[in-house]
Protein backbone atom coordinates (compact mmCIF):
# COMPACT_ATOMS: atom_id res chain seq x y z
CA UNK A 1 0.00 0.00 0.00
CA UNK A 2 1.31 3.40 -0.83
CA UNK A 3 2.04 6.07 1.68
CA UNK A 4 -1.54 7.11 1.82
CA UNK A 5 -0.94 10.60 0.64
CA UNK A 6 -3.18 11.42 -2.22
CA UNK A 7 -1.40 13.16 -5.01
CA UNK A 8 -2.66 14.01 -8.40
CA UNK A 9 0.70 15.02 -9.72
CA UNK A 10 2.08 13.33 -12.77
CA UNK A 11 5.15 11.20 -12.48
CA UNK A 12 8.40 12.98 -13.31
CA UNK A 13 9.00 11.35 -16.66
CA UNK A 14 5.43 12.02 -17.69
CA UNK A 15 5.77 15.63 -16.69
CA UNK A 16 8.76 16.32 -18.85
CA UNK A 17 7.17 14.54 -21.76
CA UNK A 18 4.04 16.49 -21.25
CA UNK A 19 5.88 19.78 -21.02
CA UNK A 20 7.55 18.99 -24.28
CA UNK A 21 4.20 18.29 -25.82
CA UNK A 22 2.83 21.54 -24.56
CA UNK A 23 5.67 23.48 -26.12
CA UNK A 24 5.15 21.71 -29.37
CA UNK A 25 1.48 22.45 -29.27
CA UNK A 26 2.02 26.05 -28.35
CA UNK A 27 4.27 26.44 -31.32
CA UNK A 28 2.08 24.51 -33.70
CA UNK A 29 -1.04 26.11 -32.24
CA UNK A 30 -3.06 23.00 -32.41
CA UNK A 31 -3.50 19.66 -30.75
CA UNK A 32 -3.22 16.92 -33.26
CA UNK A 33 -6.54 15.24 -33.48
CA UNK A 34 -4.96 11.87 -33.12
CA UNK A 35 -3.71 12.90 -29.70
CA UNK A 36 -7.08 14.10 -28.54
CA UNK A 37 -8.64 10.96 -29.79
CA UNK A 38 -6.04 8.86 -28.11
CA UNK A 39 -6.66 10.50 -24.77
CA UNK A 40 -10.38 10.12 -25.12
CA UNK A 41 -9.96 6.53 -26.17
CA UNK A 42 -7.58 5.86 -23.32
CA UNK A 43 -10.07 7.17 -20.82
CA UNK A 44 -12.89 5.18 -22.30
CA UNK A 45 -10.79 2.09 -22.47
CA UNK A 46 -9.78 2.34 -18.87
CA UNK A 47 -13.32 3.03 -17.76
CA UNK A 48 -14.61 0.09 -19.75
CA UNK A 49 -12.02 -2.14 -18.20
CA UNK A 50 -12.94 -1.02 -14.71
CA UNK A 51 -16.60 -1.60 -15.41
CA UNK A 52 -15.90 -4.95 -16.91
CA UNK A 53 -13.88 -5.97 -13.90
CA UNK A 54 -16.66 -4.89 -11.62
CA UNK A 55 -14.39 -2.38 -9.94
CA UNK A 56 -16.79 0.43 -10.76
CA UNK A 57 -20.51 0.47 -11.31
CA UNK A 58 -23.05 2.88 -12.74
CA UNK A 59 -22.92 5.11 -9.70
CA UNK A 60 -19.52 6.30 -10.93
CA UNK A 61 -21.15 7.32 -14.18
CA UNK A 62 -23.73 9.15 -12.14
CA UNK A 63 -20.93 11.17 -10.53
CA UNK A 64 -19.56 12.01 -13.95
CA UNK A 65 -22.97 13.26 -14.95
CA UNK A 66 -22.86 15.66 -12.04
CA UNK A 67 -19.68 17.24 -13.33
CA UNK A 68 -20.05 20.18 -15.65
CA UNK A 69 -18.59 23.59 -16.31
CA UNK A 70 -19.98 24.90 -13.04
CA UNK A 71 -18.37 22.10 -11.10
CA UNK A 72 -15.58 20.92 -13.37
CA UNK A 73 -13.64 18.90 -10.80
CA UNK A 74 -16.52 17.33 -9.03
CA UNK A 75 -15.54 13.74 -9.56
CA UNK A 76 -11.95 14.13 -8.49
CA UNK A 77 -13.04 16.19 -5.48
CA UNK A 78 -15.45 13.55 -4.28
CA UNK A 79 -12.99 10.77 -4.97
CA UNK A 80 -10.29 12.63 -3.07
CA UNK A 81 -12.58 12.87 -0.08
CA UNK A 82 -13.39 9.19 -0.51
CA UNK A 83 -9.72 8.24 -0.48
CA UNK A 84 -9.08 10.28 2.60
CA UNK A 85 -12.03 8.86 4.48
CA UNK A 86 -11.40 5.31 3.33
CA UNK A 87 -7.82 5.30 4.42
CA UNK A 88 -8.92 6.41 7.86
CA UNK A 89 -11.39 3.55 8.00
CA UNK A 90 -8.86 1.04 6.76
CA UNK A 91 -6.44 2.13 9.45
CA UNK A 92 -9.20 1.80 12.03
CA UNK A 93 -10.04 -1.66 10.82
CA UNK A 94 -6.46 -2.80 10.87
CA UNK A 95 -5.94 -1.42 14.36
CA UNK A 96 -9.03 -3.17 15.63
CA UNK A 97 -7.84 -6.45 14.17
CA UNK A 98 -4.40 -6.05 15.67
CA UNK A 99 -5.81 -6.55 19.11
CA UNK A 100 -4.78 -10.06 20.00
CA UNK A 101 -7.30 -10.51 22.73
CA UNK A 102 -10.71 -9.14 22.11
CA UNK A 103 -11.98 -7.71 18.91
CA UNK A 104 -14.42 -4.87 19.18
CA UNK A 105 -17.03 -6.25 16.83
CA UNK A 106 -19.33 -3.31 17.22
CA UNK A 107 -16.67 -0.87 16.12
CA UNK A 108 -15.63 -3.14 13.29
CA UNK A 109 -19.16 -3.14 11.96
CA UNK A 110 -19.46 0.61 12.32
CA UNK A 111 -16.31 1.26 10.33
CA UNK A 112 -17.24 -1.32 7.74
CA UNK A 113 -20.65 0.22 7.29
CA UNK A 114 -19.12 3.62 6.80
CA UNK A 115 -16.64 2.33 4.25
CA UNK A 116 -19.34 0.38 2.53
CA UNK A 117 -21.59 3.39 2.33
CA UNK A 118 -19.05 5.73 0.87
CA UNK A 119 -17.81 3.09 -1.56
CA UNK A 120 -21.32 2.56 -2.77
CA UNK A 121 -21.83 6.30 -3.16
CA UNK A 122 -18.95 6.65 -5.57
CA UNK A 123 -19.58 3.42 -7.41
CA UNK A 124 -16.68 1.46 -5.98
CA UNK A 125 -18.47 -1.82 -6.36
CA UNK A 126 -15.75 -4.29 -5.58
CA UNK A 127 -14.59 -2.51 -2.47
CA UNK A 128 -18.17 -2.27 -1.31
CA UNK A 129 -18.77 -5.96 -1.85
CA UNK A 130 -15.67 -6.96 0.03
CA UNK A 131 -16.82 -4.81 2.93
CA UNK A 132 -20.06 -6.75 2.90
CA UNK A 133 -18.22 -10.05 2.98
CA UNK A 134 -15.98 -8.73 5.72
CA UNK A 135 -19.01 -7.70 7.70
CA UNK A 136 -20.42 -11.20 7.33
CA UNK A 137 -17.21 -12.63 8.70
CA UNK A 138 -17.40 -10.30 11.69
CA UNK A 139 -20.98 -11.26 12.37
CA UNK A 140 -19.97 -14.88 12.38
CA UNK A 141 -17.03 -14.21 14.67
CA UNK A 142 -14.78 -15.80 12.12
CA UNK A 143 -11.41 -14.34 12.91
CA UNK A 144 -9.40 -15.87 10.12
CA UNK A 145 -12.00 -14.89 7.57
CA UNK A 146 -11.83 -11.37 8.96
CA UNK A 147 -8.07 -11.25 8.56
CA UNK A 148 -8.33 -12.50 5.01
CA UNK A 149 -11.06 -10.05 4.25
CA UNK A 150 -8.96 -7.18 5.48
CA UNK A 151 -6.09 -8.22 3.21
CA UNK A 152 -8.36 -8.46 0.22
CA UNK A 153 -9.96 -5.16 1.10
CA UNK A 154 -6.64 -3.36 1.30
CA UNK A 155 -5.53 -4.88 -1.95
CA UNK A 156 -8.72 -3.97 -3.76
CA UNK A 157 -8.67 -0.48 -2.38
CA UNK A 158 -5.11 -0.01 -3.65
CA UNK A 159 -6.05 -1.22 -7.06
CA UNK A 160 -9.02 1.11 -7.18
CA UNK A 161 -6.95 4.05 -6.08
CA UNK A 162 -4.27 3.41 -8.67
CA UNK A 163 -6.78 3.06 -11.44
CA UNK A 164 -8.64 6.19 -10.49
CA UNK A 165 -5.35 8.08 -10.33
CA UNK A 166 -4.64 6.88 -13.83
CA UNK A 167 -8.06 8.01 -14.96
CA UNK A 168 -7.59 11.46 -13.52
CA UNK A 169 -4.15 11.75 -15.07
CA UNK A 170 -5.57 11.05 -18.49
CA UNK A 171 -8.27 13.56 -17.83
CA UNK A 172 -5.80 16.15 -16.71
CA UNK A 173 -3.84 15.70 -19.90
CA UNK A 174 -6.97 16.23 -21.85
CA UNK A 175 -7.81 19.39 -19.96
CA UNK A 176 -4.30 20.72 -20.31
CA UNK A 177 -4.45 19.96 -23.97
CA UNK A 178 -7.67 21.89 -24.30
CA UNK A 179 -6.18 24.75 -22.36
CA UNK A 180 -3.34 25.10 -24.78
CA UNK A 181 -5.78 25.13 -27.64
CA UNK A 182 -8.26 27.41 -25.94
CA UNK A 183 -6.36 29.67 -23.61
CA UNK A 184 -8.40 31.05 -20.79
CA UNK A 185 -10.55 28.01 -20.41
CA UNK A 186 -8.20 26.23 -18.06
CA UNK A 187 -10.14 25.09 -15.04
CA UNK A 188 -8.58 25.49 -11.65
Amino acid sequence: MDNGVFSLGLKLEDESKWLKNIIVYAVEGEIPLRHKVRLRTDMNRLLSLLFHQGVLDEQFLQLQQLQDETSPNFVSEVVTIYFHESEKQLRNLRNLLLDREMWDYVKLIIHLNQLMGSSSSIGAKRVRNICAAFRGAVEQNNRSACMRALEVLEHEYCYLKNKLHELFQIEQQRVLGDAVRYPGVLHP
Partner: protein
Amino acid sequence: MSAMFSRRWRSQPETTTTTTTDVHVLAVDDSLVDRKVIERLLKITSCKVTAVESGWRACQYLGLDQEDKTSPEFVNGLKVDLIITDYCMPGMTGYELLKKIKGSANFREVPVVIMSSENVVARIDRCLEEGAEDFIVKPVKLSDVKRLKDYMFGETRGTIPSADKNNKEEKGSFNKRKLQEMSDNSPPLSLSSSPPLSLSSSPSTSQSPPTSSPSTSPSPPNLSPSTSPSTVSPSNSPSPPTESPTTSSSPQSPSSSESPSSTPPTSPPFSPSQLESPTMRLKVTNYDQA
Protein backbone atom coordinates in the same frame (compact mmCIF):
# COMPACT_ATOMS: atom_id res chain seq x y z
CA MET B 1 -22.96 30.94 -21.16
CA SER B 2 -20.18 32.98 -19.66
CA ALA B 3 -22.75 35.00 -17.77
CA MET B 4 -24.16 31.88 -16.26
CA PHE B 5 -20.70 30.69 -15.44
CA SER B 6 -19.71 33.85 -13.64
CA ARG B 7 -22.94 34.04 -11.74
CA ARG B 8 -22.42 30.57 -10.45
CA TRP B 9 -18.91 31.36 -9.39
CA ARG B 10 -20.16 34.25 -7.36
CA SER B 11 -22.94 32.30 -5.81
CA GLN B 12 -22.89 32.22 -2.09
CA PRO B 13 -23.54 29.45 0.34
CA GLU B 14 -27.11 28.65 0.92
CA THR B 15 -27.62 30.60 4.07
CA THR B 16 -27.99 33.86 2.23
CA THR B 17 -31.39 35.03 1.26
CA THR B 18 -33.02 33.15 -1.51
CA THR B 19 -35.93 33.98 -3.66
CA THR B 20 -39.21 32.54 -2.59
CA THR B 21 -39.32 30.17 -5.50
CA ASP B 22 -36.10 28.45 -4.57
CA VAL B 23 -36.48 25.18 -2.79
CA HIS B 24 -34.30 25.05 0.28
CA VAL B 25 -33.25 21.63 1.40
CA LEU B 26 -31.61 20.68 4.65
CA ALA B 27 -29.46 17.60 4.05
CA VAL B 28 -28.23 15.55 6.98
CA ASP B 29 -25.57 12.87 6.63
CA ASP B 30 -22.56 11.91 8.70
CA SER B 31 -20.60 10.77 5.66
CA LEU B 32 -18.65 13.56 4.01
CA VAL B 33 -18.67 11.75 0.69
CA ASP B 34 -22.43 11.40 0.79
CA ARG B 35 -22.89 15.00 1.85
CA LYS B 36 -20.88 16.17 -1.09
CA VAL B 37 -22.85 14.00 -3.48
CA ILE B 38 -26.28 14.89 -2.16
CA GLU B 39 -25.34 18.54 -2.14
CA ARG B 40 -24.37 18.38 -5.77
CA LEU B 41 -27.45 16.39 -6.71
CA LEU B 42 -29.67 19.00 -5.09
CA LYS B 43 -27.82 21.95 -6.54
CA ILE B 44 -28.01 20.52 -10.00
CA THR B 45 -31.76 20.29 -9.59
CA SER B 46 -31.78 23.97 -8.64
CA CYS B 47 -32.27 23.60 -4.95
CA LYS B 48 -30.56 25.56 -2.28
CA VAL B 49 -28.79 23.25 0.10
CA THR B 50 -27.64 23.36 3.65
CA ALA B 51 -25.72 20.22 4.49
CA VAL B 52 -25.02 19.25 8.07
CA GLU B 53 -23.24 16.29 9.53
CA SER B 54 -25.51 15.13 12.30
CA GLY B 55 -29.03 15.06 13.61
CA TRP B 56 -27.91 17.20 16.47
CA ARG B 57 -26.58 19.89 14.13
CA ALA B 58 -29.79 19.72 12.18
CA CYS B 59 -31.75 20.34 15.37
CA GLN B 60 -29.49 23.23 16.18
CA TYR B 61 -29.99 24.68 12.73
CA LEU B 62 -33.74 24.42 13.04
CA GLY B 63 -33.73 25.73 16.56
CA LEU B 64 -35.27 22.51 17.77
CA ASP B 65 -32.90 22.15 20.63
CA GLN B 66 -34.55 25.08 22.28
CA GLU B 67 -37.82 25.40 20.57
CA ASP B 68 -39.46 27.19 23.42
CA LYS B 69 -36.95 29.93 23.05
CA THR B 70 -37.03 30.39 19.32
CA SER B 71 -38.62 33.55 18.13
CA PRO B 72 -41.17 33.67 15.34
CA GLU B 73 -38.77 35.84 13.40
CA PHE B 74 -36.22 33.10 13.50
CA VAL B 75 -38.65 30.54 12.24
CA ASN B 76 -40.09 32.78 9.59
CA GLY B 77 -36.65 33.70 8.38
CA LEU B 78 -35.69 30.10 8.13
CA LYS B 79 -37.33 28.66 5.12
CA VAL B 80 -36.77 24.95 4.91
CA ASP B 81 -38.82 23.18 2.28
CA LEU B 82 -37.49 19.71 2.62
CA ILE B 83 -35.32 17.76 4.98
CA ILE B 84 -33.43 14.80 3.65
CA THR B 85 -31.56 12.70 6.13
CA ASP B 86 -29.51 9.56 6.34
CA TYR B 87 -30.92 6.88 8.57
CA CYS B 88 -27.77 5.43 10.14
CA MET B 89 -25.92 8.14 11.93
CA PRO B 90 -24.03 8.06 15.18
CA GLY B 91 -25.69 9.90 18.03
CA MET B 92 -29.08 10.81 16.71
CA THR B 93 -30.31 8.53 13.97
CA GLY B 94 -32.34 9.79 11.06
CA TYR B 95 -35.34 8.15 12.63
CA GLU B 96 -34.87 10.04 15.86
CA LEU B 97 -34.39 13.26 13.94
CA LEU B 98 -37.58 12.53 12.06
CA LYS B 99 -39.45 12.14 15.30
CA LYS B 100 -38.10 15.38 16.63
CA ILE B 101 -39.10 17.23 13.50
CA LYS B 102 -42.55 15.73 13.42
CA GLY B 103 -42.93 16.53 17.08
CA SER B 104 -42.03 20.13 16.65
CA ALA B 105 -44.56 22.85 16.28
CA ASN B 106 -42.58 24.80 13.75
CA PHE B 107 -41.35 22.13 11.43
CA ARG B 108 -43.74 19.22 11.55
CA GLU B 109 -45.18 20.28 8.22
CA VAL B 110 -41.84 20.06 6.46
CA PRO B 111 -41.53 16.88 4.43
CA VAL B 112 -38.78 14.59 5.61
CA VAL B 113 -37.16 12.04 3.36
CA ILE B 114 -35.01 9.26 4.75
CA MET B 115 -32.04 7.77 2.93
CA SER B 116 -30.51 4.47 3.77
CA SER B 117 -28.16 1.98 2.22
CA GLU B 118 -30.11 -0.82 3.83
CA ASN B 119 -33.26 -1.79 2.09
CA VAL B 120 -35.01 -3.10 5.16
CA VAL B 121 -38.76 -3.11 4.91
CA ALA B 122 -39.28 -2.85 8.64
CA ARG B 123 -37.11 0.21 8.73
CA ILE B 124 -38.93 1.78 5.82
CA ASP B 125 -42.25 1.07 7.46
CA ARG B 126 -41.18 2.53 10.73
CA CYS B 127 -40.08 5.74 9.07
CA LEU B 128 -43.19 6.10 7.03
CA GLU B 129 -45.31 5.46 10.08
CA GLU B 130 -43.53 8.22 11.85
CA GLY B 131 -44.41 10.57 9.03
CA ALA B 132 -41.56 10.42 6.61
CA GLU B 133 -42.58 11.51 3.19
CA ASP B 134 -40.43 9.04 1.40
CA PHE B 135 -37.55 6.68 1.68
CA ILE B 136 -34.66 6.55 -0.75
CA VAL B 137 -32.29 3.63 -0.98
CA LYS B 138 -28.68 4.65 -1.38
CA PRO B 139 -26.75 5.32 -3.47
CA VAL B 140 -28.86 8.31 -4.32
CA LYS B 141 -29.13 9.09 -7.99
CA LEU B 142 -30.03 12.18 -9.93
CA SER B 143 -33.28 10.56 -11.00
CA ASP B 144 -34.25 10.10 -7.35
CA VAL B 145 -33.70 13.73 -6.55
CA LYS B 146 -35.38 14.97 -9.69
CA ARG B 147 -38.40 12.84 -9.03
CA LEU B 148 -38.54 13.97 -5.44
CA LYS B 149 -38.34 17.58 -6.40
CA ASP B 150 -40.84 17.20 -9.18
CA TYR B 151 -43.53 15.56 -7.20
CA MET B 152 -43.08 17.78 -4.21
CA PHE B 153 -42.43 21.12 -5.78
CA GLY B 154 -42.52 20.82 -9.49
CA GLU B 155 -44.77 21.45 -12.41
CA THR B 156 -45.08 17.81 -13.15
CA ARG B 157 -46.98 17.01 -9.98
CA GLY B 158 -49.56 14.47 -10.68
CA THR B 159 -47.73 12.63 -13.34
CA ILE B 160 -47.05 8.98 -13.02
CA PRO B 161 -44.18 7.88 -15.16
CA SER B 162 -44.53 4.47 -16.67
CA ALA B 163 -44.77 1.79 -14.13
CA ASP B 164 -41.79 0.04 -12.87
CA LYS B 165 -42.49 -3.45 -13.98
CA ASN B 166 -39.40 -5.00 -12.64
CA ASN B 167 -39.71 -4.16 -9.01
CA LYS B 168 -37.34 -6.30 -7.13
CA GLU B 169 -39.04 -8.40 -4.58
CA GLU B 170 -37.01 -7.01 -1.77
CA LYS B 171 -38.42 -3.56 -2.27
CA GLY B 172 -41.41 -5.50 -1.42
CA SER B 173 -44.36 -4.54 0.47
CA PHE B 174 -43.63 -0.87 0.54
CA ASN B 175 -43.77 -0.55 -3.21
CA LYS B 176 -46.56 -3.03 -3.50
CA ARG B 177 -48.56 -1.04 -1.06
CA LYS B 178 -48.08 2.08 -3.03
CA LEU B 179 -48.79 0.37 -6.30
CA GLN B 180 -51.81 -1.20 -4.74
CA GLU B 181 -53.16 2.14 -3.70
CA MET B 182 -52.53 3.59 -7.08
CA SER B 183 -54.33 0.86 -8.87
CA ASP B 184 -57.16 0.83 -6.37
CA ASN B 185 -58.15 4.30 -7.21
CA SER B 186 -59.69 5.62 -10.30
CA PRO B 187 -57.30 7.66 -12.36
CA PRO B 188 -56.85 11.04 -10.81
CA LEU B 189 -57.84 14.00 -12.85
CA SER B 190 -54.48 15.57 -12.77
CA LEU B 191 -52.64 12.55 -13.96
CA SER B 192 -51.53 12.13 -17.47
CA SER B 193 -52.39 8.84 -19.02
CA SER B 194 -50.45 6.15 -17.42
CA PRO B 195 -50.12 2.60 -18.42
CA PRO B 196 -51.73 0.10 -16.12
CA LEU B 197 -49.60 -0.66 -13.21
CA SER B 198 -48.42 -4.16 -12.90
CA LEU B 199 -48.45 -5.56 -9.47
CA SER B 200 -46.28 -8.35 -8.45
CA SER B 201 -48.54 -9.37 -5.66
CA SER B 202 -52.18 -9.79 -5.12
CA PRO B 203 -54.01 -6.87 -3.65
CA SER B 204 -53.41 -6.54 -0.01
CA THR B 205 -55.95 -5.70 2.55
CA SER B 206 -56.64 -2.31 3.81
CA GLN B 207 -53.28 -0.84 3.53
CA SER B 208 -54.51 2.47 2.59
CA PRO B 209 -53.18 5.41 4.27
CA PRO B 210 -55.41 7.18 6.50
CA THR B 211 -54.65 9.99 8.45
CA SER B 212 -51.61 9.20 10.31
CA SER B 213 -51.29 11.16 13.42
CA PRO B 214 -48.31 13.25 12.55
CA SER B 215 -49.42 15.47 9.81
CA THR B 216 -47.12 15.34 6.89
CA SER B 217 -48.54 17.88 4.61
CA PRO B 218 -45.78 19.73 2.92
CA SER B 219 -46.30 23.33 2.13
CA PRO B 220 -44.39 24.09 -0.98
CA PRO B 221 -44.20 27.79 -1.42
CA ASN B 222 -45.06 27.76 -5.06
CA LEU B 223 -47.93 25.41 -5.02
CA SER B 224 -50.28 26.48 -7.69
CA PRO B 225 -53.80 26.95 -6.43
CA SER B 226 -55.16 25.30 -9.49
CA THR B 227 -53.83 21.99 -8.45
CA SER B 228 -56.77 19.78 -8.00
CA PRO B 229 -57.45 19.03 -4.43
CA SER B 230 -56.41 15.58 -5.24
CA THR B 231 -55.06 15.39 -1.86
CA VAL B 232 -54.31 12.17 -0.50
CA SER B 233 -53.55 11.35 2.95
CA PRO B 234 -50.03 10.34 3.50
CA SER B 235 -49.60 7.05 1.91
CA ASN B 236 -47.11 6.21 4.42
CA SER B 237 -48.67 4.44 7.24
CA PRO B 238 -49.36 0.79 7.00
CA SER B 239 -51.18 0.78 10.28
CA PRO B 240 -54.84 -0.10 10.20
CA PRO B 241 -56.71 2.75 8.69
CA THR B 242 -59.14 4.68 10.68
CA GLU B 243 -61.61 5.02 7.95
CA SER B 244 -62.84 2.99 5.08
CA PRO B 245 -60.06 1.74 2.93
CA THR B 246 -61.73 2.32 -0.33
CA THR B 247 -61.78 6.00 -0.01
CA SER B 248 -58.81 6.86 1.96
CA SER B 249 -56.24 7.15 -0.69
CA SER B 250 -58.28 8.43 -3.47
CA PRO B 251 -56.54 11.05 -5.41
CA GLN B 252 -59.83 12.18 -6.67
CA SER B 253 -61.47 15.32 -5.77
CA PRO B 254 -63.75 15.71 -2.86
CA SER B 255 -66.14 13.02 -3.80
CA SER B 256 -64.31 10.60 -1.61
CA SER B 257 -65.43 10.53 1.90
CA GLU B 258 -62.07 11.57 3.01
CA SER B 259 -62.40 15.00 1.67
CA PRO B 260 -59.04 16.46 1.14
CA SER B 261 -60.05 19.92 1.84
CA SER B 262 -61.12 19.09 5.28
CA THR B 263 -59.10 19.28 8.31
CA PRO B 264 -56.17 17.53 9.53
CA PRO B 265 -55.54 14.60 9.46
CA THR B 266 -54.33 15.98 6.50
CA SER B 267 -54.00 15.21 3.10
CA PRO B 268 -51.27 17.06 1.47
CA PRO B 269 -52.04 18.44 -1.93
CA PHE B 270 -50.17 15.62 -3.45
CA SER B 271 -48.65 12.57 -2.12
CA PRO B 272 -46.03 10.14 -3.11
CA SER B 273 -48.55 7.38 -3.17
CA GLN B 274 -49.98 8.72 -6.33
CA LEU B 275 -46.74 9.40 -7.96
CA GLU B 276 -43.77 7.33 -8.61
CA SER B 277 -41.68 7.42 -5.53
CA PRO B 278 -37.95 7.34 -5.82
CA THR B 279 -37.88 4.04 -4.06
CA MET B 280 -39.70 2.50 -6.94
CA ARG B 281 -36.92 3.12 -9.29
CA LEU B 282 -35.04 0.26 -10.74
CA LYS B 283 -31.67 -0.36 -9.31
CA VAL B 284 -30.80 -2.97 -11.85
CA THR B 285 -30.52 -0.98 -15.00
CA ASN B 286 -29.20 2.42 -15.58
CA TYR B 287 -31.91 4.06 -17.55
CA ASP B 288 -32.95 7.45 -16.50
CA GLN B 289 -36.54 7.76 -15.48
CA ALA B 290 -36.47 11.40 -14.71
